C-alpha cells in the first residue's frame, strides 16, 4: 500500500513539476500577453493541483490535507481572476490583441 502511495506521490509531483516547467517556458517564449497568460494558468491550475495531489498521502492529519486542498482552490480562484483582469486590461489598451 505504502509503495503504491509513494509511486503516486512521485508520479504526481513530477507531472506537476513538468507543468510548471512547461508553463515557465511558455511564459518566456510565447509572443503576446494572452498566450502567455494561457501558458501561466497551466502551471497554476494543473501543476499546483498535481503537486498537492502528490503530497496528500503524506500529510499527518486530515486537517492538514484539507488545508492543502484549500490552498489549491484559493490559487485557482485568484489565478482565474487575475488572468481575467490582465486580459481585460490588455484588450482595452490594444483591442486587436
Amino acid at each position: 500500500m505504502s509503495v503504491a502511495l509513494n509511486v503516486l506521490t512521485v508520479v504526481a509531483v513530477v507531472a506537476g513539476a513538468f507543468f510548471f516547467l512547461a508553463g515557465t517556458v511558455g511564459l518566456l517564449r510565447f509572443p503576446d500577453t494572452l498566450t502567455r497568460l494561457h501558458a501561466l494558468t497551466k502551471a497554476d491550475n494543473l501543476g499546483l493541483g498535481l503537486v498537492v495531489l502528490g503530497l496528500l498521502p503524506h500529510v499527518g492529519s486530515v486537517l492538514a490535507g484539507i488545508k492543502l486542498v484549500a490552498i489549491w482552490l484559493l490559487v485557482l480562484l485568484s489565478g482565474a481572476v487575475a488572468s481575467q483582469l490582465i486580459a481585460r486590461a490588455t484588450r482595452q489598451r490594444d483591442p486587436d490583441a
Partner: protein
Amino acid sequence: MMEALNAGLALLLLALAVWTIVARDAFAAVAGFIAYGLLLTLAWVQLSGVDVALTEAAIGGGLTGALLIGAVGRLRDTEATARVERPKALTRALAALVAGAVTVALALCVLTLPDPAPTLAPDVAANIAATGVGNPITAVLLAFRAMDTLLEAIVLVFALIGVWSLAPDRAWGGRPGVRHVADPNGILAYIARVLPPIGIIVGMYIFWAGADHPGGKFQGATILAAMWLLVMMAGLTDAPPISRAWLRIGLVAGPLVFIAIGLAGAVTAGAFLAYPDGYAKPLIIVIELALMPTLALILALLLVGAPQRTIQR
C-alpha cells in the same frame, strides 16, 4: 541536494537584487523587488524563521510591493524626463563608491560575528513558561521586548499621519485616494464578494495561531487590510473620510490599550509593560486583539494614500 537548492536560492536572490537596482524601467524594478520578496520568504523558511517568512511575504513582498506599484503609477508622467537625465560621471562614481563601502562594511560585520553568535534564545526558552504563550517569537514580541512592539505600532500611526499630511487643504478631512469604479457584475466585484469571508477567517486564524505557532497580529492584520482594499478597489465601498471620529479612535485604540496595560504593569508588577504573575497570557491576548484592528486600518489606509478629492461643503 539541500546545499545545491540553497546555493541556487542565494544566487537567484543576488541576481534579482542586482536586477532591481540596474533596471531602468521603474515598473520592472518593482516587479523584481516583489519577486525578490517572495524568494526572501523562501530563504527565511529554509532558515526555519517561519515567523519572519510570514512577515516578509505579507509586509515585505505584498504590502510594500503594492505601495511601490502605486508609486510607479504616480511617477509615470515624469519617468520619461527622469530617464533622459543621467547624473554626471563623478556623481555616479561617488554613489558607486559609497554604496560599495557600505556593502563591504556590512559584509565585514557579518563575517566577524563570533561563532556561535551571541544569543538570548536559551534565556527565552527558560522563561517562556512565565508568559503562557507557546511561540517564542510572540513571547519576545509581547513580553520580553514589548517596548519594541509598542513603538512599532506608534511609528505606523505616525507614518499614516505623514501620508495624510500630503493632502491639499481643500481635500483635508475628506475621503482618501480615488473613487474606484468597476463593473458591478464584473469579475473584480465577484472576487471582492467571494474572497473577504475566506480572508477574514484566514486572518483571524493566523492571528489566533500566533500564540503557539508562527503567525500573529501583524500578518493577520495585513490579510484583513488586503480584504478591505479589495472591496474598495472593486468599487463596492469607499474609503471613510479621514475626519470620522470612529476612524481616528480606531487608529489610536491599539497603542492606547497597550500603553494603559503597560502603565497598569508599572503599578501592579513594578515595571512599565511588566505583567503581574499569572495574567501574562490574557493581557497579551487583550493587547493583540486591540492592536489588530488598528494595524489593519493603518496598513490599508497607508495604501489608499492621502485625501485628494475636493469636498463639497
